[in-house]
């Protein structure tokens, strides 16, 4: 009777061994899959993090650039105002400067020095009469 029980148990063990191996392999596979997925997701999270950080920096740079443009515009406005020709002429006149009279100008001719060379682009004479 005892022998018979042992025989049955022995049969049962020989049948369970491959099952356990399969279970073990499946467990390993699951763990590996989990690790793979975790690595992939970590990479995704990392990449997303990098992307969003760069996006954020670009946005910040754009904001900074827009601010710099506005500040530059303000400076150019001041520069333009300071160079206003009406103001400059008034300042020059106040300092004693003014356009010369024709009689105050004396032209001196110097050889090999053309005092005035007019230089104009040439039109394309494509029109017909």
């Amino acid at each position, binding site marked *: 009777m005892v022998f018979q029980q042992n025989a*049955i148990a022995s049969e*049962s063990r020989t049948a*369970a061994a491959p*099952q356990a191996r399969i279970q073990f392999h499946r467990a390993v596979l*699951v763990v590996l*899959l*989990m690790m793979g*997925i975790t690595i992939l*997701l970590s990479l*995704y*999270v990392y990449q*997303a*993090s990098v992307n*969003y*950080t760069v*996006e*954020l920096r670009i*946005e*910040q740079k*754009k*904001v900074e*650039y*827009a*601010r710099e*443009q*506005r*500040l*530059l*515009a*303000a400076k*150019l*406005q001041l*520069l*333009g*105002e300071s*160079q*206003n*020709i*009406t103001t400059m002429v008034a300042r020059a006149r106040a300092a004693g400067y003014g*356009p*010369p009279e*024709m009689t105050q*100008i004396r*032209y001196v*001719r110097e050889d090999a*020095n*053309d*005092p*005035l060379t*007019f230089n*104009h*682009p*040439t*039109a*394309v*004479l*494509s*029109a*017909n*009469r």
Partner: protein
Amino acid sequence: MRVYHYSPGPLPPHDQEGKKRAPRLSIKQRLAILFATMVVVSLILSAQVVRHQVFGVAPETTSSKLPEKLRLRGAIVDATGHPFAIQTFRYEVIASPNAMQEQAMPAIAEKVASYLNRDPAELLRIFQANKDQPYVLLDKNAPPEVGEAMLSDPELKTNGIGIDVYPVRFHPEQSLAAHVLGFVDVDNKGHYGIEEYFNNFLLAPTDEIVPGPDPKLEASLGAPVANAVLPDSPFIPSPARRDLILTLSRSLQYMAETRLKEAIETYQADSGVVIIMEPKTSAILAMAGYPSYNPDNYPNYDPERFVNPAISEIYEPGSVFKLITFAAALEKRAITPETQFNDTDKYVYGEQTIQNWDRKGRGKVTAQTALAQSLNVTTAKIAAHYVGVVDFYNAVARFGFGQNTGIELAFEAPGIVNGPNSTQWALGNLATNSFGQGISVTPLQMANAVAAIAAGGVVHRPHVIKMSINDDLIRVKEPEAASIAISPQTARTLTQMMVAAANHTKQAIIPGYAIAGKTGTAEIPTLGGYKEDRTITTFVGFFPADDPQFLILVKLVRPKTSAWASKTAAPTFRKIAQDIINIYNIPPDAIRLQTSP
């Protein structure tokens, strides 16, 4: 006997108590759920951990996201880079008292007051009085440094204080060249002049708004040039990178406007125009109209001021138009400067009776004398008997009258020329048209027609654009010939006749310089006919006559001190010519011709 067996199959649908149980999931299903859960968790992590900064702090409005109204606008500068119109920004400070906690209002008022240099108690009163309001304007135009400081203060935004930034047009030279430039309204839209003509070019594209190519505008801007050299100026390229460099010279424009204003005050005229151009290319160096306006304050002016009188207002040119009649006759070889005519008291042609300005005939005169003394009778005879209807109106068309010149400015008028094909034309019109009556032109058309004489007979398209910047593309506008009005030989002969005519007008001459010019005094047509005391006086001329570099047209409307061009427009011409000689340091002809090759 107990048998151990492994059963991976599904669990029975009912347990021992008969309760319904959920079906057991397979490994694959479990893995799929696990994977989906991890994906969701990672996305939530990503959103919460990584993007929290993006979501937590909204970035300020950037130029790339501006709506059309707020698009950047390019600069307009003169030929040397001096700015006529540039982009600046206006900072509007607004409060939303309904978003403020009542107990925090004093602190907010204190803080805002320190920025705006205002009384905190006054701001607090404003907040409390408008505590249910979402929008209260605190400052319409805060200084840029204040606006920027407030923009970078995060506390203000969270406490119901906002700063709106609007691009605005600014004109450093104020009213200078206003008629050429036009103005920009609060919606960032250009009106009149260059601002309207090039509105779509000047507005910078954004991520949302990328306008398609506009062949008409591109043709107006010229051809791309790889190695083009821009004027050395801090104002270009502007942040918009859509800029226009004009042919105008700031110095000449200022001088022209100053001289025109002086003339209008001296001769008590109603209005006036001065045009200075390069006759060999028809590049506009200055274009002044009076009265003018300041584009920065355009709402304060009568809209009539916005109209550019140099291109939009038509008038009867008077005797200046005799140049066209003489050009047609010379070109036809029907006359020479020495051809003699019998200048009578009256000349009846068709239904018209023609008389000279003093109603006196001169007897035997040459064509040269007829032009110099501006004799209507002889001019009408030349048109009627030597030129003829067809050749006269053909010449008028070749010189560009009755059609737009094509200048790159909005609202150019074509003028009125009623030729023989018109129902309003009668034979007598040929005689009156020959000395500039019954025909309407713009000052620019008249200047450009005379420029053609200076340019050897070639009519160029007048232009104000020299170069343009479109991102990295630089276009350069080259002179463009529109038609050939007369031969170079006729142009030379007519120039000599114009020099003699200018010498006849003592008020226009400058000793040492040969100037080719012609006066024009036109009576203004009214319902009751022409009135002698209501005139438009014109002088148009160019110099140096042997190598024309500058053409000046002066037009004065209803001068009161004298009705004659020789007493009003001619002296103004001389002053402007003297200024140009000074600015460009042009030596007298004797010295210049002695040294030139």
